[in-house]
């Protein structure tokens, strides 16, 4: 949590007349993302106090930038932009890590249609891929594409895999998938081009829950493997309300 005076200031970019994007860089990089999350935390903390931050409606952290959406009726865009740049100067480079989750994943062949091709590509075995996935601590860089969809970085280079040449028209809900250097879970049945390697019984988005999205940018995720039987039982327990998704939360911050 130290000030990082050597880091260059972010670029302040207008995203139309109702948002500012503070861009820290152009790459997927945990250090850049750390600066994004630090500024997001600081702006969120200050917005209740500072009149210059009035009118902010949404704070959207991404891999490499923080976008601050505002209501143009309640904000002075120029003053808000200045205030955000000023905060960026004092935001530091990192925040305490987000919550740590330990989430079940079933790698049953029926849930992992792309695992054989992935193994072939990387000259390895399903067991070795599953072991690697379960030993990795993934970092949620951002939520996007669809509600609750987590872009999780940290996939070891030995498993980096391009997207499918032809995306599927319907990826089953809660599919665990990898693409490039990322891992993700599809919250709903939807079109998608990532490689499907497993499935989790946990809902990534529930409008009735608070917060509705299971994961947030900055969270960390570890997978543990469950067999098909345990998957089905966990799924049933969750749906009956006998099991809360927070049961899989290991810690608030670390």
């Amino acid at each position, binding site marked *: 949590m130290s000030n990082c005076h050597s880091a260059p200031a972010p670029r302040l970019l207008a995203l*139309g*007349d109702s948002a500012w*994007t503070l861009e820290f860089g152009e790459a997927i990089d945990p250090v850049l993302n750390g600066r994004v999350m630090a500024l997001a935390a600081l702006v969120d903390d200050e917005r209740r106090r500072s009149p210059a931050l009035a009118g902010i409606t*949404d704070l959207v952290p991404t*891999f490499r*930038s923080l976008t601050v*959406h505002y209501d*143009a009726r309640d904000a002075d865009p120029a003053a808000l932009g200045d205030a955000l740049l000023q905060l960026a100067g004092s935001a530091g480079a990192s925040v305490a890590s987000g919550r740590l989750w330990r989430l079940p994943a079933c790698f049953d062949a029926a849930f992992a249609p792309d695992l054989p091709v992935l193994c072939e590509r990387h000259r390895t075995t399903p067991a070795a891929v599953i072991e690697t996935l379960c030993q990795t601590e993934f970092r949620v860089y951002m939520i996007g594409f669809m*509600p609750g969809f987590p872009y999780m970085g940290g996939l070891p280079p030995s498993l980096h895999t391009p997207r499918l040449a032809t995306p599927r028209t319907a990826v089953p809900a809660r599919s665990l998938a990898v693409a490039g250097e990322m891992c993700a879970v599809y919250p709903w049945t939807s079109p998608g081009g990532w490689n499907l390697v497993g499935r989790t019984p946990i809902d990534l988005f529930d409008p009735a829950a608070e917060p509705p999205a299971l994961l947030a940018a900055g969270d960390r995720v570890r997978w543990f493997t469950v067999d098909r039987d345990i998957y089905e039982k966990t799924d049933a327990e969750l749906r009956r309300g006998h099991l809360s998704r927070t049961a899989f939360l290991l810690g608030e911050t670390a």
Partner: protein
Amino acid sequence: MNASLEVIDGGLGNTLQDRGRHGYRHLGVATSGFLDPQFAACANALAGNPDDAAAIEIRGIGPTLKAIGGPLRIALCGEIEAQLLRHGGSRQTLAPWHSATLAAGDIVKCGAVGAGTAYLAVSGGFTPTPQLGSRSTYQRANIGGIAGRPLAAGDSLPCTRLAAHEYREFRNDPWRHADGPVHVIAGPQADHFAYDALQRFAAAVYTVSRDSDRMGMRLAGPVLQHRSPAHADIVSDAVTPGCIQVPGNGLPIILLADCQTVGGYPKIATVIGADLGRLAQCRPGDELRFASVDLATAGALRRAEEDRLARWRQGIGSYLPAGYLDETALYQSNLISGAVRAEPPIRD
């Protein structure tokens, strides 16, 4: 004072919307909301509501609705008209930019939208329970509206009945969106484009394609070249309605209300808020040009649009529709003095 409109026929692709869902974009939830906030504000004003009350957004074939309880005032704005099938058997036409009062059992059968986007508002607004702070329908996540989907036969749309049956109705001239170029703020990735492409974007005429929905609108026209093929992709960052994304094929896509929260294509420019409603009224083949403005000018254009809307509201006139009133009773109840603007009644 509860009442409802029962959906007899959902029509095609009709959704409840309001001003949208704010504060959830960090969770990947789109804002949704009215594609044309000005038309929606007009419909709401004619129905006696604040601008942002939830209304039915009609983009294709309109719904058929039956008043359960009443009286209810409805209003219609856009290129659309509706048939009123009165419980007593009479029929009238409800023209757009007019209100009508429904008694219990009356049916309103909306036609198809000629072009663009139309709104049906009801007195008090539609009042299903908001989800994540809004009644706007967001189909991708099945949130808001009625079960997060377009209207379907059998749905019950809760609303509030009028305290008493009023005989006056309200109307105004159609809202005219600004013409001329669509105003944009440059960037945030204007530097991903060749100098030629930026010149071309500022000068060219683009045509609205058929490929358009609540998420976005594809344009046809001169290809906008990126500085290099590598500049055609970015590491995803946030987007917002109005963003003009240009993928590798060089053809712009304007993002609209249901757009994702992040995207991986460079954005050459972003349409200002005051001009978003215009886009909802475009039909395939319409031509668009773009003009870049700064934030101060965008602010002035927004305020000018708000003033114009305030003047439009002041221009709403009341009148007494012919056809289903006892004129003697009317004169006795002295309702005519309530007229803001004396105009002849419309024909049924």
